[in-house]
């Protein structure tokens, strides 16, 4: 279903102008490039390479003293790409800060015995002290690797996630990696994802992809028998079980998922990826690099898909099936038909409670566009969306999804976001933990759309029903009908009020 609604372009344009008016001239000019409106609408789900008129400047460096929501290269590599590979140990190499701050911030589900053969929710660091900075940390790194090999004999490899100081003190972690890989006959991957590189976590994704290319692919003789329906799922991190929900569907239409990058993944799944017949990309932003590489080097085609909400699920399943021909296409139609009643039940239940509700999004990865139609499947309207660390191609892709007049904001500051939300007063904001409390205190329902707020999965048909329930719970919670304070009448004479609005 393609929901019809209009966004108020004039009002949104005025909001942007108001926000920019508060900046000094130079900063206003700089920021104006990040804020925009969608100017025309295209049907979603067709040509993924169509150029959209939704364009903003993006992937540009952050401004000192203007805190945005971005992370760093280390976040992109350790936090996103490498961290979920469950049978490896990922060392946050450097001082204790980065790894400790970010520990357990993502919810990559997995199965395995933590601390025995699986290590996702554990945290490892070389815990640099002053002497390591002064005299270099390679010796310590060697010891750390030796200790880990001894303490966790069932681990299948180690990655070295460089923190800022590593790039400054001239350590040669590649040499250490080579030496220790040989000594312990294991995989050791050095990743140069120091936090100061690039402008956001995005470069970290790229560096992490390159590290897979250079330090994992084609390094071992694989015992793996490929089949005609083998696919890799790329860029699904299994937040709240998303990858599992997706895998169910892909298997139902007759495919074999031989690798899931990188939620609940083993190193072996990564190693054998070049033997698959197709790469299915969920999070384009974080994993397009390695997909393009596999296309070039191993001639594996790749395609994007979207499993948020029934409209996109059906389109994506058909698109994927087309690649494999009539047999799979038939099975796909059967699967789609099978789930139709389930979808109707979900929509019938929640449409009356959710239709017409207006949503603002500000997230990372692919979600600022991919989740849009899932909301629309429930009758909800997207009034604004933006990426933490998107690139031009992300914004191009967004054009397919958004309606004309939709507010678009790149790398938005908390000041800007707050002003937009105050102006629009949407019925729901979907963003991250750092935005959650300010938005809620404005009296506006909120869902974390990075972590699914301890819920999930949101992928696939099962995920859709959970998604619908969660949005309903957030928007229609009676807590939002908060009373004015009983002393409102005497407000002038003493401080305090109910909510700032």
């Amino acid at each position, binding site marked *: 279903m393609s929901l019809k609604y209009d966004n108020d372009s004039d009002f949104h344009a005025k909001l942007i102008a108001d926000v920019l008016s508060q900046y000094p001239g130079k900063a206003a000019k700089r920021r104006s490039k990040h804020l925009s409106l969608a100017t025309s609408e295209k049907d979603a789900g067709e040509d993924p390479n169509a150029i959209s008129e939704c364009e903003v400047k993006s992937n540009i460096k952050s401004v000192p003293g203007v805190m945005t929501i971005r992370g760093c290269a280390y976040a992109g590599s350790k936090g996103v790409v490498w961290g979920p590979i469950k049978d490896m140990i990922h060392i946050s190499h450097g001082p*204790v800060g980065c790894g400790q701050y970010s520990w357990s911030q993502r919810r990559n589900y997995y199965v395995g015995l933590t601390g025995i053969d699986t290590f996702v929710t554990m945290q490892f660091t070389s815990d640099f002290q002053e002497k390591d*900075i002064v005299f270099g940390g390679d010796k310590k790194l060697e010891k750390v690797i030796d200790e880990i090999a001894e303490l966790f004999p069932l681990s299948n490899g180690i990655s070295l996630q460089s923190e800022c100081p590593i790039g400054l003190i001239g350590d040669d972690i590649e040499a250490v990696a080579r030496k220790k890989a040989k000594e312990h006959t294991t995989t050791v991957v050095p990743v140069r994802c*120091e936090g100061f590189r690039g402008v956001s976590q995005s470069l970290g994704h790229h560096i992490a992809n390159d590290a897979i290319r250079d330090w994992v692919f084609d390094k071992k003789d694989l015992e793996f028998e490929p089949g005609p329906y083998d696919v890799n799922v790329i860029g699904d991190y299994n937040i709240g079980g998303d990858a599992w929900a997706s895998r169910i569907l892909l298997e139902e239409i007759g495919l074999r998922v031989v690798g899931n990058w990188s939620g609940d993944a083993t190193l072996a799944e990564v190693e054998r990826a070049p033997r698959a017949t197709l790469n299915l990309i969920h999070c384009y932003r974080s994993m397009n690099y390695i997909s393009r590489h596999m296309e070039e080097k191993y001639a594996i085609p790749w395609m994007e898909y979207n499993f948020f909400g029934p409209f996109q699920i059906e389109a994506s399943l058909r698109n994927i099936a087309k690649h494999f021909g009539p047999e799979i296409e038939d099975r796909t139609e059967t699967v789609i038909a099978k789930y139709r009643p389930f979808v109707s039940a979900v929509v019938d239940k929640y449409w009356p409670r959710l239709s017409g509700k207006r949503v603002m999004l500000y997230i990372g990865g692919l979600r600022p566009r991919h989740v849009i139609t899932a909301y629309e499947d429930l009758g909800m309207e997207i009034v604004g969306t933006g990426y933490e660390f998107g690139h031009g191609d992300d914004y191009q892709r967004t054009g397919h999804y958004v309606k004309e007049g939709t507010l678009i904001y790149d790398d938005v500051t908390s000041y800007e976001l707050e002003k937009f939300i105050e102006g629009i007063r949407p019925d729901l904001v979907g963003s991250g933990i750092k935005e959650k409390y300010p938005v809620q205190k404005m009296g506006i329902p909120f869902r974390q759309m990075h972590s699914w707020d301890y819920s999930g999965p949101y992928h696939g048909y099962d995920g859709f029903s959970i998604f619908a329930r969660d949005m309903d719970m957030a928007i229609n919670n009676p807590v939002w009908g908060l009373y004015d304070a009983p002393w409102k009448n005497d407000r002038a004479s003493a401080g305090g009020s109910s909510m700032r609005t």
Partner: protein
Amino acid sequence: MARVVSQTKSAAVNPLKSSQPLGAAFAFLGVDGAIPLLHGSQGCTSFALALLVRHFNEAIPLQTTAMNEAAIIVGGADRLEEAILSLKARTRPRLIGICTTASVEARDEDVAGDVENIKRKRAIELVGTEVVLANTPDFDGAIEEGWSKAVTAVIEAIARPDKQYRNPRKIAILPGWNLTVADIEHLRETAVSFGLDPVILPDVSGALDGSIPEEWMPTTYGGTKLEEIRDLGATMQCIAIGEHMRRPAEALQRLTGVPYVLFRSLTGLENVDRFIRVLAAVSCKQTPLNVRRNRMQLQDTMLDGHFHMAGKKIAIASEPDQLFQFSDFFTAMGAEIAAAVTTTGTSKALEMVPAKTVKVGDLSDLESLAATADLIVTHSHGREAARRLGVPLMRVGFPMFDRFGSQHKLTILYRGTRDVIFDFANIIQANHPPNPWPT
């Protein structure tokens, strides 16, 4: 008298400590109208911010100089200046608290010099805003040191450094990072109930207590006011809470001559008695009735609770002063500290910990020592070890991201001690049901 055992592994597996700049930023959050500014790459700030938000369930003002590759090569002075000016222009903070991170400290940048230059060069633009620096590389110390350095820096930069008229009702209280919002509120009430007028630095009970300000604030709202910090020299007595607050207390004494008394812990009957005696002596007042009643209630709770605490083996991991605070109290109730792990080995509090040894280490050290314990006491990251070992977890310290209301828990004075006993005994009761057989 514990023996402090230094780290044995090179790797930290499930580290216990958070790094220094976070502790400093946390302290700056307790000053009114402040913005902590992390000097380093944006990632540090972003991560630290997310963790602070998860801990407090609050919006947290935290800023970054967003050091990038270029700045890393040429040095961060320009980024720092740009950040300060931008903050000043947009948010008019009363205090910008700079916390350095590993990336600038590893280059051995002269940040202090940079700050002085900026303050000189931009003196006019910066009128009305104090800029204070805490050197807090991630590769040294932990939360305690960061907090202590930030408070010291604030005092040294702002308190008027001369002898002045001492107001006999005014006292200064310098609480350690390990006190909750509820603790700070209760400290204030208690001092006020003796007729005293306390200046509490830092005071996180304003901005981080979960109230909702009327207008959007880009800085902290609530916290110690700059004027109060300036006039710290007008207090009769300074009370420092936690060994790590000795440094700022000494700085204050050096600058202004205000004497200090140090309490390693305000948890446990004897410690609180001593504190109450000090308040009574300073104020020349009798102890108010409600404080007396609280003491009676605590005694009663100790009688009820000693039973569930006696003989219990505790495995505890925390920063030194918090480690002392809880170990000292638990053993006073008859429990036994079976394992003690801490973040850094330099604090004098460590040797007072009532355990054979205190290990500088990580949560994997705790896990390996805690298998036969009756209770694990540490922050939220201890939950996995606790689950693997099947030992219940009492959450204390930072971070605490998987329970609500941690900032509204009292842990000090008579009432807080009482509540700690309730918590402890209830965890024990929940996990050692009266009939252990299958029913």
